[in-house]
């Protein structure tokens, strides 16, 4: 590989690391430092120590260029001080405008870390001969695949934001929390946020990505599954899951009726 290509690659990676570092520090300041100062959390040495933990995690992720550390480790470390001082995540600390700014910063960091750490391919060679297929239009299956990637990205941004907005800022929910948990609204709202994130991760993994898994990992599993389905269909009978679901539905309806009217 020519020296110029190595130099360009080095400069590009340095730029990528710099952008991820700046955006990561921005997230740390807006999620940890400012809310903690606002609620006076830094008088507690344990909270102060927990607040400093995300910084070495971010540095480690940038040094190792590790997706796991940057996309899972650093955001999880940001929750450590919030777990010790739940008031940091309460609705009165985050107004709607500030919540929007922090959300944009967090999404920008996650996208940049995801985008920049995905450059594993070598730099372009000096001589390039275009393939004949490159002059053809993009096949429909690839256009379909790009559409799905875009939709998954939009879902990953919009759904958690909407859920967290309703948990923290919707007046009906907040009034309900104040009625049900007087004096503990901040901690219960923080727990609700964690539950919302966990629910979204489960939905995303099993519902949205789960459906696409056979396509992502190749068609062999899908073909095997289809042949099993055809064998089942030739028998002309539904699978045992059908009978189990039917029995569960009827049993639960009976329980509901019995508990209401007897």
């Amino acid at each position, binding site marked *: 590989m020519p020296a110029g290509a190595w130099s360009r690659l080095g400069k590009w990676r340095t730029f990528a690391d710099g952008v991820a570092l700046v955006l990561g520090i921005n997230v740390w300041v807006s999620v940890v430092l400012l809310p903690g100062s606002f609620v006076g959390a830094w008088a507690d040495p344990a909270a102060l120590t927990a607040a400093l933990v995300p910084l070495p995690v971010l540095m480690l992720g940038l040094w190792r260029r590790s997706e796991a550390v940057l996309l899972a480790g650093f955001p999880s470390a940001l929750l450590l001080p919030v777990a010790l001082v739940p008031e940091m995540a309460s609705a009165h600390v985050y107004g709607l405008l500030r919540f929007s700014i922090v959300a944009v910063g967090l999404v920008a960091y996650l996208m940049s870390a995801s985008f920049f750490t995905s450059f594993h391919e070598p730099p372009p060679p000096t001589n390039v001969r275009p393939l004949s297929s490159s002059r053809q239009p993009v096949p429909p299956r690839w256009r379909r695949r790009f559409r799905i990637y875009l939709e998954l990205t939009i879902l990953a941004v919009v759904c958690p934001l909407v859920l967290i907005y309703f948990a923290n800022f919707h007046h009906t929910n907040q009034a309900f929390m104040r009625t049900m948990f007087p004096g503990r609204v901040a901690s219960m709202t923080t727990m609700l946020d964690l539950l919302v994130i966990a629910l979204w991760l489960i939905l995303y993994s099993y519902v949205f990505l789960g459906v696409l898994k056979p396509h992502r990992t190749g068609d062999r599993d899908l073909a095997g599954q289809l042949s099993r389905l055809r064998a089942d269909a030739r028998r002309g009978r539904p699978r045992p899951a059908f009978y189990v679901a039917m029995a*569960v*539905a009827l049993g639960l309806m009976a329980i509901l009726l019995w508990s209401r009217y007897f």
Partner: protein
Amino acid sequence: MFFEILSLSLILGSIFFFYECIGYLAHRDYAAAIILMFIGLAVISVAKEMARLALVKKD
């Protein structure tokens, strides 16, 4: 065609159970809401089996 109609009807039926579940949640009758949620899930599982049979028969 029979399996398609049956599957669609069951899916609509499961939506009815989920709708009722929300109603019970609004009245803070959590036990009934959970039972209705599981009924909805069970009915949608039955609908899924019907839809699968319809697809495979068409294939």
